[in-house]
């Protein structure tokens, strides 16, 4: 049935895989109607999908450097697009994004624009040129373009800070989902998540991660879109929610008027005992906040996320795996298309979820009903037990008001199918999707960090004579060490998932964006300029984060500081990146122009055809 090589058969293989997954969903639906418990269905969903990823990881094992670092540079455009989309869409995107839109409204949606608009920067400024360069890792480009071990080490340092912040958040998300789906403690969930992540990446490096990420994308997109379309037709939103929810958005506006958007005082919330992390609706669903500051807050967040996107190494390195420069460019467009499918659905899910809870005309509506009735609803009981939802009767009238209903943002994705009365098999599917999203991003990040350490620090700086076997042993050992360290830190649950995800973007943009872009677009950029830019950018960004984030600033200065110009801890890249740019330009102009060999290298990387700038085996 399979003629020709593996690459030629990819559409067939993943077609079969998708069909198999559909059959599995149907089997689970049959099992549910035959009386298998909800918990067991959740367990089977997660176990089955993770088992498949591990199997793909095992099949993709390799002993070749080229396959381990860049998947042999033979990943076709569309498949690389899917893998990048899975690499990109993290547990936070999957689980928390719709919840963020649900509570944060318009201003929060700057994340949506930021996390998609960044790909225009990737495609125009970086991906094709880095692909032509022929490097294995992002610091490999910086180290070769600017020349020297010190600048290479500086970029590894930035990569490490940005990606490690991100990976702890992902392992945290894997743990949360595993613990809920399997009914085990969070700490155990973290270690189970880690083992699954390592099985997918350790034996085959980039090759294994690529093919598991494609499989994970298929699971996560089915798990996200199926409930959105189903709920939409169930609540009468129309069969194609993206184009048809205008009336529903307007209806939410009316209901907001009817119930009133009330802000609770902190004292009230404290005395009612609202658990930490739970939120209530206090802002309009589709309204735009007034004033120049609100505009600036939106734009600065969007800018940070866009520029950060274009500097995150685990994304850029995916474009090193395509067969050609043209393929790299095309696959950026495909990545964005696959990402768009999920991101454009998040606001629709938030709308449907909000309407289901708010509209008294719907059977699922709870706002405006008697609190005793609401507390008797099965899903309310189940999610109250785990402190994910909470009711506080502030005015004592026994009726649930909009400001008296609290829930965690994640609930929007995880519980909406249940709320809308979909069968549990859909909730099981959503758990599997969340797990796929968190695992695929964690895989990409752990690999980005360990590849930079093994290639740029160990092979390029410490032991350039190391043979292939030794290089790959070091790479794998580092992979395990990074994973274990990430899981260990994640098990302390230091920050909320989203806080640290945004930080990764700000770190990457502070230290890497301009050294990368100017490396291609400005021949005059020198090694000294790059070193100065990276170091001042990352340092100023980090210092500002310590200054502005209350938990840190209270620990260091004893007081919390007001953000300067509204630049809070989510946006500290707005400080780091400009400082990096100015320093880099000034220092470059003060130092000697790069030599002819370097200038020729830059010229070569601007020409799309021909051989890579640095040789194949390096």
């Amino acid at each position, binding site marked *: 049935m399979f003629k020709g090589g593996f690459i030629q058969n990819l559409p067939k293989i993943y077609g079969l895989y998708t069909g198999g997954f559909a059959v599995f969903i149907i089997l689970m639906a049959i099992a549910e109607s035959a009386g298998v418990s909800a918990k067991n269905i959740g367990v089977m969903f997660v176990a089955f999908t993770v088992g498949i990823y591990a199997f793909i990881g095992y099949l993709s094992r390799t002993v070749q450097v080229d396959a381990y670092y860049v998947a042999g540079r033979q990943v076709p455009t569309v498949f690389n697009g899917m893998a990048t989309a899975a690499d990109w869409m993290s547990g936070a995107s999957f689980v928390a994004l719709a919840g963020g839109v649900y509570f944060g409204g318009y201003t929060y949606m700057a994340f949506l624009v930021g996390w998609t608009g960044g790909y225009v920067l990737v495609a125009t400024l970086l991906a094709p040129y880095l692909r032509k360069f022929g490097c294995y890792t992002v610091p490999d480009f910086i180290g070769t373009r600017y020349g020297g071990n010190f600048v290479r080490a500086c970029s590894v340092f930035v990569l490490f800070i940005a990606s490690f912040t991100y990976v702890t958040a992902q392992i945290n998300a894997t743990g949360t989902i595993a613990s809920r789906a399997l009914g085990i403690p969070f700490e155990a969930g973290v270690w189970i998540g880690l083992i699954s992540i390592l099985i997918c990446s350790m034996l085959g490096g980039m090759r294994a991660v690529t093919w598991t990420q494609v499989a994970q994308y298929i699971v996560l997109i089915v798990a996200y879109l199926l409930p959105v379309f189903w709920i939409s037709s169930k609540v009468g939103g129309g069969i194609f929610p993206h184009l048809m*929810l*205008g009336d529903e958005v307007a209806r939410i506006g009316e209901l907001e008027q009817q119930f009133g958007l009330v802000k609770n005082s902190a004292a009230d919330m404290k005395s009612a005992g609202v658990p930490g992390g739970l939120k209530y609706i206090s802002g309009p669903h589709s309204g735009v906040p*007034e004033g120049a500051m609100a505009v600036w807050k939106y734009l600065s967040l969007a800018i940070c996320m866009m520029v950060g996107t274009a500097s995150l190494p685990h994304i850029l390195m995916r474009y090193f795996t395509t067969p050609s420069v043209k393929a790299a460019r095309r696959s*950026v467009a495909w990545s964005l298309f696959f990402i768009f499918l999920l991101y454009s659905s998040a606001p629709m899910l938030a709308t449907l979820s909000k309407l289901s809870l708010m509209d008294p005309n719907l059977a699922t509506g709870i706002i405006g009903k008697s609190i005793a009735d609401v507390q008797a609803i099965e899903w309310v009981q189940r999610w109250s037990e785990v402190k994910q939802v909470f009711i506080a009767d502030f005015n004592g009238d026994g009726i649930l008001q909009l400001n008296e209903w609290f829930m965690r943002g994640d609930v929007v994705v995880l519980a909406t199918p249940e709320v809308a009365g979909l069968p549990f098999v859909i909730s099981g599917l959503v758990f599997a999707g969340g797990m796929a999203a968190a695992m695929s991003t964690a895989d990409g990040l752990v690999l980005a960090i360990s590849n930079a350490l093994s290639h740029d620090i160990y092979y390029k700086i410490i032991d350039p004579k190391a043979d292939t076997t030794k290089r790959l042993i070091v790479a794998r050992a580092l992979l395990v060490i990074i994973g274990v360290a990430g899981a260990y830190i994640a098990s302390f649950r230091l920050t909320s998932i989203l806080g640290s995800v945004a930080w990764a973007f700000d770190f990457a943009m502070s230290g890497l964006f301009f050294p990368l872009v100017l490396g291609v677009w400005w021949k005059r950029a020198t090694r000294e300029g790059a070193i100065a830019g990276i170091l001042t950018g990352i340092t100023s960004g980090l210092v500002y984060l310590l200054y502005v984030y209350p938990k840190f600033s209270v620990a260091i200065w004893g007081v919390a500081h007001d953000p300067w110009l509204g630049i809070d801890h989510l946006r500290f890249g707005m400080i780091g990146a400009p400082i990096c740019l100015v320093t880099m330009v000034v220092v470059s102009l003060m130092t000697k122009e790069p030599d002819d060999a370097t200038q020729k290298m830059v010229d070569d990387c601007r020409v799309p*055809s021909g051989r890579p700038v640095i040789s194949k085996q390096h």
Partner: protein
Amino acid sequence: MSNKDAHWAKTKNHMYVTLALWFFFSIVLFMFGTELNTMSFLGYPLAYYMTAQGSLLAFVIILFWCTSKQEDIDEEFGYGEREDD
């Protein structure tokens, strides 16, 4: 001007055009959020629609357009790559 320089000049111009479009859909539109929201599209308030879906879709279209245009530029200067590469 050598072939290489001409190719790069054209590539650069193309980059500026793409980034101008990008800037419009990511920044300029949202400078006028309150004004835009008084208009409506598909029944959605316009600024809400753009941030939830419209700009995202615009980026996808921009990228596919930008990619094929860049490929034309590469062909024009003889830097095209084989399809089966």
